[in-house]
């Protein structure tokens, strides 16, 4: 087995030490710090970007909250405005209605009074006519002249 040939041990050990120490120095002094630096800078960049994204998200959230608040306020204002408008309209309508009702009542009262007067006059006329007819009829039949007032009273008594 060539591996057990002790004559090869010394040169292999010498060159193993040379190459491994060289590798260790190259890696430790140059290459690994460089790789670590790149990885670290990437980590920093990612952390920085994440922080930026987080603050942007927070800003967006704040804007959203402000918008919501404005919307709620506007909604409440609209509610108040609507309620007051409704109230005024209702009050106005009630006042108008009351006025109209009063006018109607007044008009109907006066109309009723006119009707009652007309009715009374008509009844009076009818009574007068009936008394006249009665008086004329009595005069024609019996030849007695009746006092118009008596005739009138008789008609009245008859009617009631």
């Amino acid at each position, binding site marked *: *087995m*060539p*591996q*057990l*040939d002790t*004559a*090869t*041990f*010394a*040169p*292999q*050990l*010498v*060159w*193993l*030490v*040379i*190459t*491994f120490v*060289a*590798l*260790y120095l*190259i*890696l*430790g002094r*140059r*290459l*690994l710090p*460089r*790789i*670590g630096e*790149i*990885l670290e*800078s*990437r980590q920093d*960049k990612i952390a920085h970007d994440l922080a930026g994204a987080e603050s942007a998200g927070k800003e967006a959230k704040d804007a959203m909250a402000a918008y919501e608040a404005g919307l709620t306020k506007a909604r409440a204002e609209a509610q108040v405005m609507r309620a007051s408008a409704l109230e005024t309209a209702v009050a106005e309508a009630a006042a108008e209605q009351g006025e109209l009702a009063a006018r109607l009542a007044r008009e109907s009262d006066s109309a009723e009074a006119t009707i009652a007067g007309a009715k009374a006059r008509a009844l009076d006329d009818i009574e007068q006519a009936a008394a006249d007819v009665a008086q004329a009829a009595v005069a024609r039949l019996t030849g007695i002249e009746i006092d118009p007032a008596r005739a009138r009273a008789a008609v009245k008594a008859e009617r009631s």
Partner: protein
Amino acid sequence: MAAEGHDAHSPLAQFEVHTLVPIKLGSVDASFTNAALFMVIAVAAITLFLSLGMQRRALVPGRWQSLVELSYEFIANLVRDNVGHEGRRFFPFVFALFMFILFANLIALIPYTFTVTSHIIVTFALAAVVFVMVTLVGLIKHGLHFFSLFLPKGVPIALAPLLIPIEIISFLARPVSLALRLFANLTAGHTMLKVFGGFVVMLGLAGVAPLLVIVVLYGLETLIAFLQAYVFTILTCIYLNDALHLH
């Protein structure tokens, strides 16, 4: 240096170490071998993979950069989950360990390459580094209290004579098992691939059958390349955690 003189068709011939450039440091043989060449290739590949992938430093990563970041975060998470916050100091070491083993394993899957991690001396050296580091970290952090690792909390004192030797043995066995696991997996896998490769050549047309086996084995070996690198790394993390936080 192929002292045992395997012929080129032996399944073990792929593990032979050849000297490419003979170098002598005093009495120490520091020759540049094919093993050394593939260690250099692995380190170069890791460096290129990481630096080219990170060249654009894009905020939104492309495919290659994602791969680089994935490997970084994979090991970073492994260290964080298993060792905790104190593990950060060991991250470069753990990352280097993982990448070295992974790339050595993966490059070895290319035909005609050399499998660095199939040599027990290499895996043992890596395991020894982990073992020594873990022990030192434990001693520095906890002083002599570190040895309470050998007596788990809440154990009746009567059991101590039995438990302490067991714990000491298991502690000392760590580097051995760490080294052997990686070495054995890689050696066995590559030997098997070579054996079945030999069958394909030998059987001619009927070689389709072993070829299919090779396809499946190759997939398995790719999995093992990742898995063994992961196992080595996560065990290192667990040992580090033991040393830092005791039981």
